């Protein structure tokens, strides 16, 4: 079937100017980086030919780190300083971590996000994740032979705002320009759908190391529309490992384990799980620090039995997602299986049973479940970077969890419902509770429950300067805006006086900007890098991008949309930015960039109007054809 013809506004890249962009799957257990090369999405390997980078970071005494296979191999020797599955702690407080007793880390309880004390100091999950991202960035730059324009980083679809913000902070800390945060099941759907020219309703079942997502998508002529998403951001392969771990403790009648033994036994448990995907039984042999030898055999049936409740836990979100999409299981044409944990035979069987009572819907496993997310992310990165080709498709994603505010009595008032297509904005009016009230405290929460206490607190801020009036007379309009990354910003405005207050939701669970800045300074001080040079380089990248975009826009419809004087003005601003880019004056570059940004606002608006007109005309032609 012919795809609709969609021209790309602002397209400026000549074919030979391929911009280097990557997709990164920052996983709980493993991470990957992929890119589009000669039109094909490929995973980039390290020097040893490994695609998967274990998401393991070891902090060493002298301040250096080791990441990946080497760190993993040392995990049981250095359990306090070798952090596995840091993704599970992103944007999470200590009370959110359910299995503290099986983890060997020295947690530090801090407001917002938990920290871990290591030999190299107290580290936040954001810093730990950024170490993994730095390695992948270096791998990509070495492999592609140049600096990256940017990266698409994937996150579980069911990640809330705090977890998304933490991920974006980690990328910034690693020096990556984030083109987009992309939901993992959506990334998989892109890779799968474009590969198979799929049409119709598809589900993506994504069970990773620490997170579970289910997304229902409608694929129509190159449009990937997410209808509903659901999941459990604290359920994954790690939980299956832990069931085996507990079973071993019980069988071997061991009660207390050293931290070394905990790490070792968890590793053995994982190996046993992997063995059981291929064999009917697995042997678990561990020599504990006490000299005691544990030697057990685990049969597949016993494993299935001890993990049955975990498999069932994934069925509930599936039912909810289908209900939200207004669909039945029979209407789903195929289920794409994603994440290493979907190799477990019992999971494939359960998913097959759930969707295909008539047996027509078998799980699709023809793409490597470990790689498919990064491959899809790379395809999206290639388009967002502005490379030609493969841009005739569109992605429409949703917000996974409802966003709302606290009202009187600790109740949640939902402003943006879950599964609203992003970007989205919604406004609601509130009023004062007391006579003469001049300030209003706004508490932003995310979740489905009625009580604020059962939802996640995202941020609190205050709107001050409300003129004193009788209770109920002031009208305060609160606007929630969710951008294409799924990130929220909130503004409040008193309608009588126009007193305004605005925040990007960050403070209570993400890191403050100042904190990220401090971490950046620390990391550069350590790497003997020069912060000022870095700032200049970043400003120049921004400036050059704007020059490219403006030149392309002028070429495309400068003559049609601007009169001579207007065009001359834009040309003049362009020339001064080009001049500034030739120099090394940070302030001059920033000032000229800003001036060109300001000077092209009207031009941009006219170009948008033209795009809208084009879409409507296209739609009429399209309607005539049918």
């Amino acid at each position, binding site marked *: 079937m012919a795809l609709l013809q969609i021209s790309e506004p602002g397209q400026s890249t000549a074919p030979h100017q391929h911009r280097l962009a990557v997709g990164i799957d920052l996983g709980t257990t493993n991470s990957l980086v992929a890119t589009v090369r000669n039109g094909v999405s490929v995973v980039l390997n390290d020097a040893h030919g490994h695609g998967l980078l274990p998401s393991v970071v070891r902090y060493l005494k002298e301040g250096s780190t080791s990441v990946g296979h080497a760190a993993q191999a040392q995990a049981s020797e250095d359990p306090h300083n070798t952090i596995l599955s840091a993704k599970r702690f992103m944007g999470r407080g200590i009370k959110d971590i359910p299995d503290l007793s099986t983890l060997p880390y020295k947690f530090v309880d801090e407001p917002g996000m938990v920290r871990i004390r290591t030999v190299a100091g107290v580290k936040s999950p954001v810093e730990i994740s950024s170490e993994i991202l730095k390695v992948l960035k270096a791998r990509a730059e070495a492999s592609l032979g140049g600096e990256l324009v940017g990266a698409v980083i994937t996150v579980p679809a069911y990640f809330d705002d705090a977890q998304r913000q933490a991920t974006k902070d980690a990328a910034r800390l690693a020096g990556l320009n984030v083109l987009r945060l992309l939901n993992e099941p959506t990334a998989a759907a892109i890779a799968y759908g474009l590969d198979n020219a799929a049409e119709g309703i598809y589900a993506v079942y994504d069970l990773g190391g620490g997170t579970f997502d289910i997304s229902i998508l409608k694929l129509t002529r190159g449009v990937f*529309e997410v209808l509903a998403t659901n999941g459990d951001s604290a359920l994954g392969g790690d939980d299956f490992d832990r069931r085996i771990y507990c079973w071993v403790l019980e069988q071997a009648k061991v009660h207390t384990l050293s931290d070394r033994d905990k790490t070792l036994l968890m590793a053995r448990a994982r190996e046993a799980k992997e063995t059981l995907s291929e064999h009917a039984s697995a042997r678990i042999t561990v020599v504990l620090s006490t000299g005691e030898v544990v030697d057990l055999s685990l049969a597949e049936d016993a494993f299935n039995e001890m993990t049955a409740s975990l498999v069932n836990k994934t069925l509930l979100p599936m039912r909810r997602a289908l209900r939200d999409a207004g669909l039945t299981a029979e209407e789903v044409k195929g289920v794409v299986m994603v994440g290493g944990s979907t190799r477990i035979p019992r999971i494939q069987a359960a998913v097959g049973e759930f969707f295909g009572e008539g047996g027509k819907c078998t799980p699709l496993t023809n793409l490597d479940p470990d790689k498919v997310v990064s491959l899809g992310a790379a395809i999206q990165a290639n388009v967002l970077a502005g490379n030609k080709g493969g841009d005739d498709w569109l992605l429409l994603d949703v917000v996974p969890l409802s966003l709302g505010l606290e009202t009187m009595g600790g109740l949640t008032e939902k402003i943006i419902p879950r599964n609203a297509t992003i970007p989205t904005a919604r406004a609601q009016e509130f009023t004062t509770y007391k006579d003469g009230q001049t300030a209003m405290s706004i508490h932003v929460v995310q979740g489905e429950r009625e009580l604020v206490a059962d939802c996640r607190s995202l941020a609190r801020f205050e709107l001050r300067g409300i003129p004193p009036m009788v209770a109920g007379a002031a009208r305060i309009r609160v606007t929630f*805006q969710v951008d294409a990354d799924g990130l929220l910003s909130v503004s409040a405005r008193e309608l009588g006086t126009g007193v305004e207050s605005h925040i990007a939701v960050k403070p209570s669970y993400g890191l403050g900007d100042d904190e990220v800045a401090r971490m950046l300074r620390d990391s550069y001080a350590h790497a003997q890098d020069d912060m000022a040079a870095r700032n200049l380089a970043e400003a120049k990248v921004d400036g050059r991008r704007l020059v490219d*975009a403006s030149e392309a826009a002028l070429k495309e419809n400068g003559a049609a949309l601007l009169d001579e004087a207007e065009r001359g003005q834009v040309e003049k601003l362009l020339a001064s930015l080009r001049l500034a880019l030739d120099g090394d004056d940070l302030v001059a570059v920033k000032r000229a960039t800003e001036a060109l940004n300001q000077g092209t606002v009207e031009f941009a608006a006219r170009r948008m109007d033209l795009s809208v007109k084009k879409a409507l005309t296209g739609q009429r032609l399209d309607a005539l054809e049918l």
Partner: protein
Amino acid sequence: MLDFSRNHFELFGLPASYTLDSERLDRAYRNLQAEIHPDKFAHAGEAEQRLAMQWATRVNEAYQTLRRPFERADYLLQLRGIHAMDAKNTSMPMDFLVQQMEWREQLEDAKTTRDVAVLERLEKNLRGEARDYQARLAEEIDLRRNDSLAAETLRKLRFTDKLLAEVGAAYEDME
């Protein structure tokens, strides 16, 4: 700048009526998003990026309003100057209220006894009821152009939709 003078129907090039060619709406929505979605401007200048987000937000809002029967009818009546959901329009016919109370009792019973069969039966009745109201809206808005009658039907549909949402929540609590 953003052209807010165009209403949701005009935005998609559709006639302003309750009865709507949903395939045409879907197609127009996808065509518009294909032109103005922020992903198409990720490498453009700041001004265009901001406009793309505003436009995509606006197009999403319009689409969500038009594709849902209740929202579409409410919006259409508002275009005609009728605010059916104003707080002062609260009086409902007695027989309607009695029926609502019966259904609420059924819902509460199903919740306490955790009886999925009762819930399913209730859901089926409510869906039938919603379909009836939707058919009536089509007639009252498009054919008879009786806005005050349509406003009452819309308020009834609101009750039914709310109950349906509560049925959905009850399913989730039982799982």
